[in-house]
């Protein structure tokens, strides 16, 4: 269940933002992506999740193994915490809603509508959604946004348990999760060069030679 990326170039709005990205994520491992805002972390994660095509390079993602969590949590304000979670569990074909609520400390909120949750509680619910997918490779975009210190620690524990169970996690985050075992990949060196400096030109400009 390895996620491998070799010499990958990803583009946003038709313009390459990262090029030559290579890494390998084995089971039981965590990789944290770092880099300044706008470097292309989200673009890279969306490409890995299959939401947009890569411009060049190779990536091998084992089929049906990747769970993606974006900035937005995909929660419905008029549904309760439990309904939200059970929906995503049945979409993924798992029964893990109860366990996920326990893991993210959401049991007391189970009957509350998502509209009445605080930002941090919503985020916890969003992360619980990752648990109910039952998939081994987690791809998380800024998972700790708006979480308090206790919740960050709670989440770090959840990730650690996932790794111990043979899963893996790829995260774009600025906050130190306290995961000592996580490797860190700084994306700054992979910033795409400008075409003037020998970088890739967009498909349309390419044709102008």
């Amino acid at each position, binding site marked *: 269940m390895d996620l491998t990326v070799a010499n990958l170039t990803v583009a946003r*709005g*038709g*313009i390459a*933002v990262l090029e030559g990205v290579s890494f390998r994520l084995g089971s039981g491992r965590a990789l944290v992506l770092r880099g300044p805002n706008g470097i292309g972390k989200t673009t890279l994660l969306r490409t890995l999740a299959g939401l947009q095509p890569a411009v060049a390079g190779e990536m091998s993602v084992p089929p049906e193994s990747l769970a993606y969590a974006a900035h937005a949590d995909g929660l419905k304000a008029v549904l309760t915490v439990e309904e939200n979670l059970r929906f995503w569990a049945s979409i993924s074909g798992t029964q893990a809603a109860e366990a996920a609520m326990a893991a993210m400390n959401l049991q007391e909120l189970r009957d509350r509508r998502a509209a009445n949750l605080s930002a941090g509680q919503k985020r916890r619910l969003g992360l619980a959604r990752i648990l109910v997918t039952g998939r081994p490779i987690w791809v998380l975009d800024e998972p700790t946004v708006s979480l308090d210190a206790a919740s960050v620690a709670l989440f770090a524990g959840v990730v650690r348990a996932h790794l111990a169970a043979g899963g893996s996690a790829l995260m774009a985050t600025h906050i130190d999760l306290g995961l000592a075992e996580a490797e860190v990949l700084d994306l700054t060196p992979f910033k795409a060069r*400008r*075409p003037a400096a020998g970088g890739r030109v*967009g*498909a*349309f*400009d390419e*044709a*102008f*030679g």
Partner: protein
Amino acid sequence: MSIWEYANPKKFMQTSAWLLPWVTGLAVACLVAGLIWGFFFTPDDFRQGSTVKIIYLHVPSAMMAINAWVMMLVTSLIWLIRRHHVSALASKAAAPVGLTFTVIALLTGAFWGQPMWGTWWAWDPRLTSFLILTLFYLGYIALWQAIEDPDTAADLTAVLCLVGSVFALLSRYAVLFWNQGLHQGASLSLDKEENVADVFWFPLLVCIAGFVLLFVALVLMRTRTEIRARRLQALLARERLA
């Protein structure tokens, strides 16, 4: 040497720059000759009088209104399958031209219908079909306008063009089912019995050739503009990013 070489914007710009004056000149020559011949050197129809002469504008523009959509369908397919940007931009360039021809066909039809049928507008199948075609063109153009990213816009409008073509055909038959109509039969068909008389025929052919050439000239011109605009957009986007 393959036709796909012209899908390269640079090659297209070179070739079209060379071609454009010739096509434009020929279009003007055909239109001037055909319209003067048609308007002043053909006899009045024994029933329709001189009103019949609007045929020289009406029939060619109606033909081109449909042909423009067919061209957009083909270029959209080429874009979806082979990802040639010129093809997508040619579809974009052709749509307003096709819309204009559709409107011309509707207006000249109204001017013709008023003395002949005693009404500017009737919900006749052909008229109705053209009205629906106008809506398809408007929707297509509006979708191009509404979407910012050029490749996304090209993809979505191509999908709309494909699905729209199927529904346009369906509408055509639905409209025929709905009302049998009073529009006369086709002015031109391979079955010679139904055709208009030769004296009207030949100037009409010249006018049709003129409209086809005019369409080609306009689409070439507009595609060139679109290519330049697209290139500019790409350069600006890259500047912003750097």
